[in-house]
C-alpha cells in the first residue's frame, strides 16, 4: 500500500433508488480493472432494475454492495464506501457518512431532483460531506441535464455549475464536451473504454463557449489568481479552473456537475478524473474524536501516521472466515501485531489478520495508515467501536446510548425463519447499541426494542432481505413508564404463620421522587432494628417491585427509598420474609405517592419546502406536539418540535401524502414526560379491554 495520502480518496456514491447507482459503481470497477466483464443490471423495461441488481449481487457474492471496495485510477487509490439507502436517522447511517471524505451525488437526467435526492442531499449537508454531482441516464428519452442543474440550484440550494455539456441527448447521446479543456470526448470500444478527444462539434461551439464563461466566472470566486486572469482576459487553463473549483468543493460552496450515461458507457472516466481532482483527500478533512477522560470534549485528530492510533470500526460483515470488521484509521498506523484498546469495552485487542477489499477478493496487508480503509479478521467488536492507542481514551462516536422507547413483537414464520431471525438479531444488536432484543417471559414472544418505528422497520426489512428470515410483527408498543410525584411513608409488617416455619419482617421508611436516576436505596437503620444480613433483601424486594408499577404495570423509575425502622423475629425472619415485606411496603407507599405515567417525547425535525410549512405544522399540532420553532433556509424550512412517540405511528405516510413527498423528518428521543390525564384514562381503558379479551 503506498503512503501518499494526497492520492487517497474515500468516497461514497449517493443516489436514490433507480438513478443508476449500481450500474455506475459497476462501470467504475470495470474501468479501474477491478472486474473484467460488465453484467447488465437492467431488466427488459428498466422497471426491474433494482431487483435485478440485487439478484446479480447475490449471484456474485459480495461485490458491489460490500461495505468498502478499493480501486485505483490515475495513480489514486479510491475506496468506494457503501452509503445506506434508507433515510432513517440511525447510528448506522451516521457511521457510514462519517467515514466518507467526499461523495458523488447521482441524479437521473429524466427524473431530476426527486424527494429522495433531497433526503440524500440533506444527509450530506448534515455531515458536511463535499460532493460532486453526476447526471446519469442522458441516453433516456426525456433527458434534460440542464434542467437537473437548475433543480440542484433551486430545490437543493446548491451552487451547481456544469463542467460539461452533453453531445446529443436521448438516443443520440454520444459523448460530452469538457468545458475545462474545451474538447469533445467520445467513448469508443465495446464498453466505452477507449476515450477519443476531438474538437468541439461546430453546432455546439457557441453553447460551449457560453457555458465555459459561466464556469470560469463561478470558479474565479474561489481563486484570486483565476479571477485576475479572467478580468485581464488572459488564457485560462483547465488546471486553473480545476484548482479553483477544488477549493470551492472542499468548502462545500460549489457543486460541479458531470453528465453521461453509465449504462451506455458514457462519461464515467471523466467522472473518475473529477473525483480524484476535486474531492478531498483524507488529510484535507477535519475529523473529530471525543475525549472520554474529559467529559466527551471534542478533539481534532491529526492525520499523521506518527500520532497515536485512532480507528473506527464502521461496519461488520459475516464472511466465510468469521466476522470481518471494516475499519477506518483516522490517525497513526494500525499494524499487524499492535495492541489497541476498544474504548467502549475497555478491552485490549491484538491486531491479527489485516486485509484490503478488492471487490470480489481480498488482499492481505501488514498495516493500515491514517486515512486508509481496511478490514480485520478475528476481532470481536460491535460496529461503531473505536480502537485507540492505550495512551488515548478517545471515541469516534458518543458513548451515550439512550434507552429504547419502542418495542415490537416478532413471530417467525417457521423453524428456518426462527434460526435465521436469531442470527440476524444477534448481528443487529452488535451493530447498533440502540437496538435491543429479548424474549418476553410471559408471552414467549421475541421482542425487539429501538429508537423509533422506522428504526425497527429497517431492521425487520433487513432481516427479510439479508437473512431470509420471514417474520410477522405485532403492533409497535411505546415504552411507557411509571413514577411517583410525592413522598409517601410506609410501615409494613409481613407476617405469616400458617404451617411450617413462620415468616416475619417489618420495614418502615419512605419513598420519594428521584428524578436524577432510576433507583436509589438508602439504609438509615440504626440499632439493628433490621439485622444487617437482611438489608440487601429489603433492597432486592424494593427493586423487584419496580419492574411493574401497580398503576398500569409499566416499569417504575425515578424512586428513592429510605428505610429507617423495622423489626425482626429471631426465628421467623428470613431473607424471603424481608423481600416480601419490602414488596408489601412498596405497594403500600406507591399508591399514596400519586403515581403517574410518563411517555417518551421525541424531538422531531421536519425539513419541508416552505409552501408546506403550515401543513406540516398542522400535522404536529394534531399529534399533541409542541412546535419549538421554524427556521427558513432558502426554499426549505426546518420545523423543530417535540411530539409524544405514541402519536408518531405512521407519520412518515402522513407527511409524505400531505407534502407530495417533498418533506422528510428525523426523530430522536428527547425526554420522558408525564402523560396528560385524558390520555392516561384512555390507556387504562385500553388495558382493561385487552385484559377482558385475554380473559375471554
Amino acid at each position, binding site marked *: 500500500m503506498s503512503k501518499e495520502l494526497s492520492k487517497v480518496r474515500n468516497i461514497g456514491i449517493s443516489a436514490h433508488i433507480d438513478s443508476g447507482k449500481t450500474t455506475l459503481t459497476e462501470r467504475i470497477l470495470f474501468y479501474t480493472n477491478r472486474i473484467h466483464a460488465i453484467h447488465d443490471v437492467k431488466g427488459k423495461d428498466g422497471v426491474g432494475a433494482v431487483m435485478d441488481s440485487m439478484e446479480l449481487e447475490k449471484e456474485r457474492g459480495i461485490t458491489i454492495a460490500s461495505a468498502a471496495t478499493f480501486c485505483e485510477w490515475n495513480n489514486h487509490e479510491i475506496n468506494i464506501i457503501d452509503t445506506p439507502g434508507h433515510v432513517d436517522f440511525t447510528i448506522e447511517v451516521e457511521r457510514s457518512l462519517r467515514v466518507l471524505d467526499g461523495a458523488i451525488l447521482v441524479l437521473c437526467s429524466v427524473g431530476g431532483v426527486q424527494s429522495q435526492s433531497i433526503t440524500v442531499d440533506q444527509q450530506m449537508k448534515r455531515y458536511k460531506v463535499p460532493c460532486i454531482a453526476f447526471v446519469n441516464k442522458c441516453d433516456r428519452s426525456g433527458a434534460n441535464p440542464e434542467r437537473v442543474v437548475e433543480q440542484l440550484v433551486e430545490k437543493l440550494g446548491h451552487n451547481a455549475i456544469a463542467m460539461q455539456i452533453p453531445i446529443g441527448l436521448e438516443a443520440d447521446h454520444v459523448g460530452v464536451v469538457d468545458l475545462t479543456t474545451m474538447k469533445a470526448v467520445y467513448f469508443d470500444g465495446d464498453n466505452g473504454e477507449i476515450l477519443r478527444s476531438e474538437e468541439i462539434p461546430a453546432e455546439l461551439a457557441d453553447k460551449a463557449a457560453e457555458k465555459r464563461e459561466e464556469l470560469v466566472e463561478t470558479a474565479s470566486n474561489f481563486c484570486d489568481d483565476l479571477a485576475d486572469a479572467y478580468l485581464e482576459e488572459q488564457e485560462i487553463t483547465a488546471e486553473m479552473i480545476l484548482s479553483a473549483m477544488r477549493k470551492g468543493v472542499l468548502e462545500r460552496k460549489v457543486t460541479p456537475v458531470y453528465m453521461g450515461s453509465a449504462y451506455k458507457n458514457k462519461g464515467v472516466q471523466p467522472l473518475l478524473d473529477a473525483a480524484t481532482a476535486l474531492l478531498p483527500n483524507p488529510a484535507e478533512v477535519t475529523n473529530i474524536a471525543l475525549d472520554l477522560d474529559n467529559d466527551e470534549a471534542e478533539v481534532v485528530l491529526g492525520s499523521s501516521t506518527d500520532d497515536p492510533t485512532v480507528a473506527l470500526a464502521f461496519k461488520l460483515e459475516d464472511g466465510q472466515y468469521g466476522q470481518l470488521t471494516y475499519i477506518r484509521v483516522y490517525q497513526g498506523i494500525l499494524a499487524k501485531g499492535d495492541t489497541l484498546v476498544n474504548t467502549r469495552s475497555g478491552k485490549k485487542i491484538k491486531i491479527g489478520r489485516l486485509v484490503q477489499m478488492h471487490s470480489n477478493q481480498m488482499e492481505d496487508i501488514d498495516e493500515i495508515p491514517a486515512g486508509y480503509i481496511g478490514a480485520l479478521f478475528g476481532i470481536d467488536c460491535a460496529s461503531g467501536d473505536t480502537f485507540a492507542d492505550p495512551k488515548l481514551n478517545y471515541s469516534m462516536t458518543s458513548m451515550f446510548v439512550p434507552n429504547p422507547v419502542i418495542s415490537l413483537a416478532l413471530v417467525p414464520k417457521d423453524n428456518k425463519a426462527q434460526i435465521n431471525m436469531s442470527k440476524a438479531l444477534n448481528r443487529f444488536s452488535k451493530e447498533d447499541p440502540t437496538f435491543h432484543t429479548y424474549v418476553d417471559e410471559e408471552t414467549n414472544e421475541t421482542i425487539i426494542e429501538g429508537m423509533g418505528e422506522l428504526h425497527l422497520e429497517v431492521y425487520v426489512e433487513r432481516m427479510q432481505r439479508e437473512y431470509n428470515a420471514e417474520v410477522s410483527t405485532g403492533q409497535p408498543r411505546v415504552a411507557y413508564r411509571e413514577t411517583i410525584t410525592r413522598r409517601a411513608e410506609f410501615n409494613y409488617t409481613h407476617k405469616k404463620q400458617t404451617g411450617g416455619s413462620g415468616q416475619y419482617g417489618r420495614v418502615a421508611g419512605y419513598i420519594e421522587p428521584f*428524578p436524577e436516576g432510576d433507583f436509589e436505596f438508602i439504609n438509615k437503620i440504626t440499632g439493628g432494628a433490621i439485622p444487617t444480613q437482611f438489608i440487601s433483601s429489603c433492597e432486592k424486594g424494593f427493586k423487584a417491585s419496580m419492574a411493574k408499577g401497580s398503576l398500569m404495570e409499566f416499569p417504575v423509575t425515578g424512586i428513592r427509598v429510605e428505610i429507617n425502622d423495622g423489626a425482626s423475629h429471631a426465628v421467623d425472619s428470613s431473607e424471603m420474609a424481608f423481600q416480601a415485606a419490602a414488596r408489601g411496603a412498596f405497594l403500600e407507599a406507591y399508591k399514596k405517592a400519586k403515581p403517574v405515567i410518563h411517555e417518551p417525547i421525541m424531538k422531531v425535525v421536519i425539513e419541508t419546502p416552505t409552501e408546506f*410549512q403550515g401543513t406540516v*405544522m398542522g400535522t404536529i399540532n394534531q399529534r399533541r406536539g409542541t412546535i*419549538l*420553532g*421554524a*427556521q*427558513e433556509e432558502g426554499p426549505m424550512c*426546518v420545523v423543530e418540535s*417535540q411530539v409524544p412517540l405514541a402519536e408518531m405511528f405512521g407519520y412518515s405516510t402522513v407527511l409524505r401524502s400531505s407534502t407530495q413527498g417533498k418533506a422528510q423528518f428525523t426523530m430522536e428521543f428527547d425526554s420522558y414526560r408525564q402523560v396528560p390525564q385524558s390520555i392516561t384514562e384512555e390507556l387504562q381503558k385500553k388495558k382493561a379491554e385487552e385484559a377482558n379479551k385475554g380473559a375471554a
Partner: protein
Amino acid sequence: MLKKDLIMRNPLRAVSDENGYILPEGGLGAVVARAGVGKTALLVQLALNSLLKGDNALHISLGDPVRKVSLWYKEVFNNIGTQYKIDKIDDLWNELLPQRFIMTFNIDGFSVPRLNERLTELADQDIFHPQMILIDGLPFNEQSKRADLHALKELSEKFSSHIWFTVRSHRHEEPDAEGMPIQISDFADLLDVAIKLEPEDSRIKLNVLKGSGSISTQGLSLDPVTMLIKE
C-alpha cells in the same frame, strides 16, 4: 401558585399597566443598545413575562438557529429559577413551552409582508396565536424604513398583539435633537415605547426614551452577570 409568585416578583411589574402590559394592544416597542449589551436578554425576559401571564409569545430571530434562541430562553429561565429558588423548574418550563414559538429567517429572507403571510397561516390553521411578538435584529431598509414600520404597526393591530423589536446602535453616534438614537429617529413617532440599554458603572441601565402614559423604568437595570432585570 408558582407562576403567580414569579409574576409578583417580576421587576417589570413596576413599568406595566394593571394587566401587566408595557405596550398598548397593537403597539410597537423598540429596545435600542450597542452590540453585546443585552438586547436579546431583555427581549427574552419580556417574552417570559408574557408566557408566565399565560400569553403566547412568538420570537423571531434573524440569523440565529432555533436551537440557539431556545438556549437563550432556557438559560434566562434557569437563572430566574436559581434567583427565586424555585424547585420543579423543569415542570414549569414544560408547561410554558407550548406557548412559545420561535421563527428564524435569514436576514435577506425576512420582510414584513412575509411575516404577515406566516402569521396568517398560523392563525388560519389555528396553530398559534401570539399576543406578543419579538423581533430580534429587525433589518432596516434605509429607503423604506417608515413604510416598513407602518406595515409592522398594521400587523400588530391586525393580530391584536404587542410587538417588540431590537435596534443596534453604535458607540460613536450622537442622538438627534430630541435625544433619540439616529437609528430610530426617523420613525420614533410610530413607536409607543422605546427603551435604551446603557452600561453604567457595574450595571446596565434601562432608560426610557419614549413611553406611553406614566411608564418609567427608573431604577431598573440588567445584572451583567445573569442578564436578569433587577430593581
